[in-house]
């Protein structure tokens, strides 16, 4: 069962890089497992930890201000590259519920919708506004998927448009397979036509 997402209030951390690929989000050495769990500590591994295993204080997520953040604000084409769903598992298990960026890679966004994580596409100028607000200490925002709007307590408001299918999966926490199996007559009819 997928965790549903209706609205979420949380604090923001910004990672202002473009083309953050899934190899960065979860490096290959963590893909050898057969479970869906245990990926949180490995999130952004090569950026988060120095080669000796200690935390790199220069990395955005390691800043004291980033502690407890559940919303990631980042650059365009986030999640590009490999289809590895482990990237979304790592983000979710670290604690992220929503990711806000000017654009996402297609497979990554599709993986988000199936794991209770909301990808929010906002124009670059509105992402900039969010970033400036965060820098000014306004780190708490509310992401409302039902109304498709992001707000804070200081008058910020940005509307977004989620993929209707992904939105339905998230709002209702749907198990996609059960949903598709409701279409069994259509699937069976297709198979009768095509063998």
């Amino acid at each position, binding site marked *: 069962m997928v965790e549903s997402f209706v609205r979420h209030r949380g604090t923001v951390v910004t990672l202002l*890089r473009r083309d953050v690929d899934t190899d960065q989000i979860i490096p290959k050495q963590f893909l*050898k497992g057969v479970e869906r769990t245990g990926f949180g500590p490995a999130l952004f591994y090569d950026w988060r930890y120095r080669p000796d295993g200690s935390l790199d204080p220069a990395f955005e997520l390691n800043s004291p201000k980033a502690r407890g953040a559940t919303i990631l604000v980042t650059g365009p084409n986030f999640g590009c*590259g*490999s289809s590895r769903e482990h990237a979304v598992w790592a983000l979710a298990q670290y604690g992220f519920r929503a990711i806000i960026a000017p654009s996402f890679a297609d497979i990554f966004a*599709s*993986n988000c919708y199936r794991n209770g994580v909301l990808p929010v596409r906002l124009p670059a100028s509105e992402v900039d506004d969010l970033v400036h607000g965060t820098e000014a200490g306004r780190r708490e925002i509310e992401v409302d998927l039902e109304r498709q709007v992001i707000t804070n307590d200081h008058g910020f408001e940005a509307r977004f448009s989620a993929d209707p*299918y992904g939105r339905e999966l998230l709002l209702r926490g749907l198990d996609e397979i059960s949903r*598709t199996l409701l279409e069994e007559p259509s699937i069976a009819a297709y198979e009768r036509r095509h063998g």
Partner: protein
Amino acid sequence: MTDTLFEKVWDAHVVQQLTDEVALLYVDLHLIHEVTSPQAFAGLRGASRRVRRPERTLATVDHSIPTGDRSRPIADPVAARQVDALGSNAREFGIELFDLASPGQGIVHVIGPELGATQPGMVIVCGDSHTATHGAFGAFALGIGTSEVEHVLATQCVALPRPRTLEARITGARRAGVSAKDLILALIGRIGTAGATGHVIEYTGDAIRALSMEERMTVCNMSIEAGARAGMIAPDDLTFAYLQGRPRAPTGPAWTSAVARWRALRTDPEARFDAQVSLDASSIGPQVTWGTTPGMVADITARVPDPAQLGTDTERRAAQRALEYMGLEPGMPLAGIPIDRVFLGSCTNARIEDLRAAASIVRGRHVAPRVRAMVVPGSQRVKAQAEQEGLDQVFREAGFEWRNAGCSMCLGMNDDVLGAGERCAATSNRNFEGRQGRGGRTHLMSPMMAAAAAIEGHLVDVREW
């Protein structure tokens, strides 16, 4: 008729329209491998579901396996467990598996076409972003996540928002020394790593028609590197000739009727694409990446760009970061950058024609001192074919390691990794930070260019050979 190739394939596979944008599509061929499938099988088992069409599913091991001696057990116990898991899942659910002992084993995107399992007009999915490779046959082939893998196993369908269409028209005659890899790298350089997001690219034009099937696979393979959902090329006589007689291809009257059907898989003259880009193949030289995305690419005759000259703030920052990571200075000529390693392999460039092209460069020469070079054939059949042609001897005598098939150093899930600071000329598809090993520096290029770099010990313009 006013449909594009993609629209014809899409429309023929709609089981049910779910929303205005999203349709449930029927999947003709589902390819699986050891890394992105174990959690999907666990999900099936947990819900007491079965695999709906095991005979439409094909499994192989490629990502995390060693490419050295196969007579020994896999040394990495975690990787061994994952490989074993695929074996037991395949047995439990009745799926054909090409395992390490099989002469048909290889990279999933190499063996699909090799078997003739990949056919025009199909919808093909795999938990791997380079599934677009199969689009070279006029299939709609795309990478999916593990939840979707489970969904396809259970329902034989995938729910997708309908992508828009982008025509990449490549015309003109390629110059000597310029390969299919250079065409696709140049295109990605032109439109950017997100230039085709939300789109399916159809590659058209006489420069595409002139490509062999293996070259077309190289082009389609890297569609994802431009952000595309998939890449496609309309099938033609070359496609049919490639497929005829392969183990999974239709035979007899079924073959004749299949070819008749496949001939209709082309974009109608009046059809419109949502976007269009054109490229003149005759103006393209051998390409080399200088940064940490495939879009950070230039002609081998160019210099490392100056981030300060770039258009936007994010671009400048990204380029600066990339140069720092790559250990390069603005203005350095690309030709002459010294390398430590050479990787000839991957689903992009490890087919027999790639190995022949590289062998033609290294024949009678030797890898430069201090350079470690390896050839990892795309499949065990490619390896056997190369050995029959004596290419393994050419590579071995030149100082290359000759390996067994797998993804190997393209993503470094096995022992084939770069050390920190090591610089590699690679025929693979991604030059992301750490992709080939933490701190490793990857320059993407064609097999000929990588082979020439191995001999010289630095990046070099293969046309000057």
